[in-house]
């Protein structure tokens, strides 16, 4: 399993390198949620630029993860989906509908900040 999690202030940066097996996903989900809770994380950036395939299972897991983190009070942004991966996902009808996306790390952090601000304003 190759996932790296880095903390930067109140933000976690998670880089997924390859497709994870079912049980790995569950463990990764749990680790991430606990860590976010423990460290008082407000935002998570998930970098998928290392993934060359995102199937329906992975896309459901990502969707779930975003929802779970949302329940914990964190905003999540997905970055770095490659053109081939995006096209394959669109053709399979995998939309990640509730997940905000950004082109790269720069855009991703900006988007995350904007969404966190929006959340505060709504409160």
């Amino acid at each position: 399993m190759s996932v790296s999690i880095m903390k930067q202030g109140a933000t976690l940066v998670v880089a997924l390198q390859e497709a994870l097996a079912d049980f790995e996903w569950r463990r990764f989900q749990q680790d991430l949620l606990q860590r976010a809770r423990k460290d008082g994380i407000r935002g998570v950036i998930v970098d998928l630029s290392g993934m060359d395939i995102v199937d329906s299972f992975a896309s459901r897991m990502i969707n779930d993860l975003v929802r779970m983190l949302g329940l914990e009070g964190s905003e999540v942004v997905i970055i770095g989906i490659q053109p081939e991966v995006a096209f394959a996902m669109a053709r399979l009808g995998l939309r990640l509908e509730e997940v905000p996306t950004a082109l790269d790390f720069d855009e991703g952090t900006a988007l995350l900040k904007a969404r966190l601000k929006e959340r505060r304003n709504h409160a």
Partner: protein
Amino acid sequence: MTESDPKPIPLPKFSPELKQGMLDYWKVSQDHMEEVNQATLKIAEEIPEFAPIVKAMSPELIAKQNRESLERNRRAFVDGDWQPMLTDLKVQGEHYATMGISFSAWIELIRKYKEFMRPLVVRGMKEGPERTIAALAGMHEILYISIEVIGEAYITSKERIIRSQEEAIRELSTPVLKIREGLLILPLIGILDSQRARRVIESMLFAIRDHRAKAVVMDITGVPMVDSKVANHLVQSVEAARLMGSTVIITGLSPEIAQTMVALGAQLPNVKTYGDLQGGLEEAQAILDLSRKNRSMEA
């Protein structure tokens, strides 16, 4: 000159009579070599498409070509080694095809040559009617094979031209234009079938990555027909771009297209659409502004 295929050109099996006929025909043409060469040149000059080429050739070049072709023919009809002759015909066919000489000009050349040669063969053959008929049959066979090889070469080189043109059209038909930092325009013209749609979407997604585009305005003014299939392709492109973090705005939905789309039940769910390019550009600019604002807030 176009490269010719190294693999041997197939040849039918000849009966002994036909082989003898070919040899006899060749001997007659050898006996009257000067006459035949002169006549062939004259025939070529009479055909408008060949005339300028023949006239441009120096006497030395013609003599050299005649010598070479003599050797190739000798090897074919006497030694039974046809490949040098057939390869030469093939190369010539490809060459003339790319020059734009029509195939019918070749047919005419061969027909006129045949008309000239026939009485010559009849007069030259003194071994009785059967050998004469065989010699004529041999001539026909040789000319038939020649036209076959030339025709094949024509088709191959024309197909090659068509293929390269197809490629050119394909590239021309999917331009992705960057009009300012983070904004791309994709004008679509022509029918959007599945294959083309895939190419368009692919090049758009790669352009999004390469230019770090926040917004893409896809203008479908030039797409004559938008049915549910085409609409589906458009939706796919919007969704794929969104996964990468970019927004696609579709413009150029003319009243006719809007009418047919609704009549056909074709839908574009979650897609920002505009009738004109201007509306799309304004929306795209708003997206860029928002992104800039977000970034500056961060700083």
